[in-house]
């Protein structure tokens, strides 16, 4: 993990913590994340969740998180996108994002060969966002959840996670998705323009504590994945992060507090068996509402 520069207009908390099931069964934490500031405007955040069935997925998720962050950084350094007017279109971003993710995959192939790992043993998901005060550029493979907020008390889903027939099925960067059709189907990307005040990325280990993902509807007698960020979870933590910023806490101090929170700070986190990663980034001050807009 790389420390955040305090001159940034954002305050960020990011951590990956091992799940109870992994502790009980002596399995390492297979989640990893990466985050750093690229320049005065842009930062990058990545969450990778290693496949439970892949032997070295903790190594794969670490490699993919770091390399994805660097490949996305390279896009910003090359393309700039310095203000709201220059933010890319969906098509422009998708082209750049797919190229970057493909480079990460190719690096992973080389890494596997050099270290003598079976490629599929490094399986992990990828959820990454380049963020600025005027927009978010997201690309992802597999599951996890992501959300952003442009207005107080309003949080919207940023991605739709890929799920198979069974609850534990998804796709990974190592999966057989690298065909023209597979890339279109399994790699998601999007651009969100606007005055972003906060956003969050999570691995699936945090989703039950932060999103409405399996809700029973009495009227239809059906269960539904609403993919709806839970405002009552996110807003208090926006305030918490801003308070830490005011108190001039270091990135390491913030992350340590965040790690403790993700471990047992809510009932859902405390009882979760899966590894948990959550990145929450918040503007240090609430943006003023432009009534003329």
């Amino acid at each position, binding site marked *: 993990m790389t420390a955040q520069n305090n001159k940034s207009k954002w305050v960020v908390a990011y951590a990956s913590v091992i799940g109870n099931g992994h502790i009980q069964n002596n399995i390492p934490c297979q989640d990893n994340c990466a985050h750093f500031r690229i320049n005065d405007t842009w930062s990058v955040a990545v969450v990778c969740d290693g496949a439970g069935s892949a032997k070295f997925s903790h190594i794969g998720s670490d490699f993919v998180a770091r390399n994805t962050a660097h490949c996305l950084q390279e896009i910003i350094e090359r393309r700039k996108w310095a203000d709201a007017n220059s933010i890319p279109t969906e098509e422009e971003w998708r082209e750049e994002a797919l190229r970057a993710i493909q480079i990460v995959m190719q690096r992973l192939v080389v890494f596997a060969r050099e270290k003598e790992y079976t490629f599929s043993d490094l399986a992990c998901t990828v959820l990454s966002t380049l963020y600025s005060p005027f927009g978010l550029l997201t690309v992802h493979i597999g599951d996890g959840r992501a959300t952003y907020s442009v207005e107080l008390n309003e949080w919207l889903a940023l991605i739709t996670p890929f799920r198979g027939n069974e609850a534990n099925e998804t796709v*990974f960067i190592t999966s057989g998705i690298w065909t023209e059709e597979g890339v279109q189907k399994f790699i998601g990307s999007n651009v969100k323009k606007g005055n972003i005040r906060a956003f969050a990325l999570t691995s699936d280990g945090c989703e039950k*504590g932060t999103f409405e993902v399996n809700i029973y509807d009495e009227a239809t007698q059906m269960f539904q994945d609403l993919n709806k960020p839970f405002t*009552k979870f996110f807003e208090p933590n926006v305030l918490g992060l801003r*308070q830490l910023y005011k108190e001039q806490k270091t990135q390491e101090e913030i992350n340590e507090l965040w790690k403790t929170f993700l471990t047992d700070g809510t009932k*859902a986190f405390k009882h979760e*068996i899966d590894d948990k990663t959550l990145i929450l980034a918040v503007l240090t001050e609430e943006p003023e509402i432009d009534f003329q807009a």
Partner: protein
Amino acid sequence: MSYFQGETPYNYEQKCLCILVLDASGSMDGEPIRELNRGLQEFYAAVEEDLIAANRLEVCIVTFGSDIKTIQEPSLISGFDMPNLSANGSTRLVDAVRKAMIRTEERKQWYKETGQPYYRPIMVLITDGEPDKDQDVTGISKEISEAVDAKKFTFFGLGVKGYNHEVMKQICPPSAQPLPLSGYKFSEFFKWLSNSIGIITKSKEGESVELPPVSDWAQMKF
């Protein structure tokens, strides 16, 4: 001072069906059925203690002797008390497995119809004997193998003292050979099963899953 806090949304757990196909034929009478009952009670207690498993695991029990009985329809642990088995009759093993396969598909269909995400069901066959002569071992063997290959369920076959290893080997899919139980260590087996369910429900791909070692309860040399 706590900087971070927040309310938790109310989400239901994803379901995992565990269907136990248990030999309650006459040969299980006495110590075997007593120990099996003890193991079942301990399995129930272990799941009940685990908040996630208690809300995730649905248990279904099919027993076989001369009759096939679904003595417990799929239910969370909170929905039933573990029944006490008694042993008598012959060994209609194949018919019981076939019934369990139907119940499994029915439950999966219900999950789908009601929009519930689910993990791959787990079927556990426990027997101390061999099927009655008129039972279609070849047929069920093919059906299980095809179903496991099609990822319809995960299958475990557990042999209790006196079981016919060759027949069980034929019934079990090549990817999951029968596991002989050491003595009547059902308690250890069910402890292993509850741990394994935790791992299975965490795994993400259809690839093989590394389960905990079986040395506590299995007799590894045939």
